[in-house]
């Protein structure tokens, strides 16, 4: 796979066997088997990821990039192998274009801060979309405020799709960077990021792709997309929390000032003058999340073992099944009906408050998310207090979807 864009014939995944590799999926809540449909918030972890993290702490825990001793060398080597795995997974041109961060939020903040300091000035603008997660809104508001730049927002239609005509209108010479989500965490919309990047590059504008909700569902090839920056988190792709990735093109990363000061990011330090390290360490101040990094490596191994295309195929089928099954519920209203969608299904039923529905589903052992999903502007656009969101992973089953439908029906009866 390795981010290779050639479409292979999908292999059917043996879901029952794969489920047995996730210890948490064997548990019960309130005496009922767990039905985990909150994968957009975080995915569950296979035993191989948990084992790698445990192995690190039991066998070679030590600080990396600085020790002369055996453990440190081993840990450093293993950690750097993960960087290589990430490079292959997203098909980055250079190894040093892969920066370890704490997660998508930190990756975006890094670019907003460092790109902003170097390239944003009064009168400039940054463009985002109306369906961004707060993590892809607030860092840009902060950067714009700091540099006197303006924030432009690409609007959406009632189906939850970007208005591409409006996008072209907004793309004037003031725009320095566009930051756009690949897949919406609330609406499930898959955005035409490649088109956006092409249009932006005609005017020399950089594009950051928030791939937090894409990397676990669809193959992401940074060179094929020609993205300038790509951000994603380990914990949404079967890996641990506390580790994420910022991919950045070498030419941008080299021009940007460092993010934080500290260990690892320096070459030499004197009180008069510090020189900064080369990529990627220039952006990696301080001891990183080492065990989590190892876990991310194992998660990538796991996904490559299954094949990202196979995951996409299985999830696509389950998604269609879920939409059809949910449609049977009286008065259901989907929030987000884009033609291109993946994984997340947001809905409301009749007058029932999403919070009430979620709480009753919980008692049936069904984990969904309720609320605004860190996308308050979307809720304001649709004029709703929140939604119930079921978000899928390949390890979910049609039986689980049936349980969801039954429980939603029951909740609606109770709440009417």
């Amino acid at each position, binding site marked *: 796979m390795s981010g290779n864009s050639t479409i292979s014939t999908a292999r059917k995944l043996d879901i029952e066997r794969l489920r047995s590799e996730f210890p948490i999926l064997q548990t019960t809540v309130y005496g009922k088997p767990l039905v985990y449909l909150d994968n957009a918030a975080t995915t569950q972890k296979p035993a191989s990821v948990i084992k790698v993290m445990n192995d690190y702490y039991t066998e070679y825990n030590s600080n990396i990039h600085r020790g002369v001793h055996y453990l440190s060398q081993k840990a450093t080597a293993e950690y750097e192998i993960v960087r290589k795995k990430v490079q292959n997974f997203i098909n980055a041109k250079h190894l040093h274009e892969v920066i370890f961060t704490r997660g998508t939020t930190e990756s975006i903040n890094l670019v907003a801060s460092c790109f902003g300091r170097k390239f944003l000035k009064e009168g400039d603008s940054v463009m985002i979309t109306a369906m961004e997660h707060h993590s892809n809104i607030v860092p840009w508001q902060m950067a714009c405020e700091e540099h006197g730049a303006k924030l432009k927002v690409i609007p959406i239609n009632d189906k939850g799709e970007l208005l591409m005509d409006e996008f072209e209108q907004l793309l004037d010479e003031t725009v320095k960077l566009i930051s756009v989500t690949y897949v919406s965490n609330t609406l499930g919309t898959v955005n035409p990021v490649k088109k956006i990047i092409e249009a932006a590059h005609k005017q020399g504008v950089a594009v950051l792709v928030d791939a937090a909700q894409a990397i676990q569902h669809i193959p992401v090839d940074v060179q094929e997309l020609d993205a300038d920056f790509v951000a994603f988190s380990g914990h949404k792709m079967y890996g641990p929390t506390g580790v994420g990735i910022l991919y950045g093109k070498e030419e941008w990363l080299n021009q940007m000032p460092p993010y934080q000061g500290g260990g690892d990011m320096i070459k030499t330090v004197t009180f008069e003058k510090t020189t900064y390290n080369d990529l990627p360490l220039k952006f990696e101040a301080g001891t990183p999340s080492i065990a989590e990094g190892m876990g991310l490596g194992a998660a990538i191994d796991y996904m490559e073992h299954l094949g990202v295309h196979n995951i996409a195929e299985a999830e696509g089928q389950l998604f269609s099944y879920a939409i059809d099954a949910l449609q049977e519920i009286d008065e259901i209203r989907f929030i987000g009906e884009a033609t291109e969608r993946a994984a997340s299904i947001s809905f409301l039923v009749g007058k029932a408050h999403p919070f*009430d529905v979620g*709480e009753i589903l919980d008692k049936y052992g069904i984990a969904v998310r309720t609320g605004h999903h860190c996308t308050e502007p979307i809720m304001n656009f649709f004029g709703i207090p929140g939604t119930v969101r079921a978000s899928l992973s390949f390890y979910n089953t049609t039986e689980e979807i049936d349980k969801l439908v039954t429980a939603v029906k029951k909740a609606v009866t*109770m*709440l009417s």
Partner: protein
Amino acid sequence: MTIKEQQDQIVEDFELFDDWMDKYEYIIQLGKELPLIDEKFKTDENLIKGCQSKVWLHADFKDGKLHFTANSDALITKGLVSMVIQVLSGQTPKDIADANIYFIDEIGLQSHLSPTRSNGLLSMLKQIKLYAVAYQAKSLQQ
């Protein structure tokens, strides 16, 4: 009934149900008995913060006693609000301010409600106690 008697009554009512689904149905039913807040009082000042759902609460002081009306956009929340009001409405500010609220723990609500919901419940109780303390101070001045 005193605040204690009201609480004991609720605890007793809940003992009738074994299943948590039945308890939820009962809570939702109680929501329908909530003395509703007048639309003109559904203002931002009367909105209680700390809830995923919205709760508006209004207090009336009459004949030395506090009377509460409220509403919520979520039914389970409405039921919880209804229980709290059943316990505390029509009592004196002093009794409310001094009240030890134990029925929530006794019926096991705390452990069954989602944390956001029980935080909301706690902020509502806090708000009611603040009203009580304020009216207590006011009546002492008079």
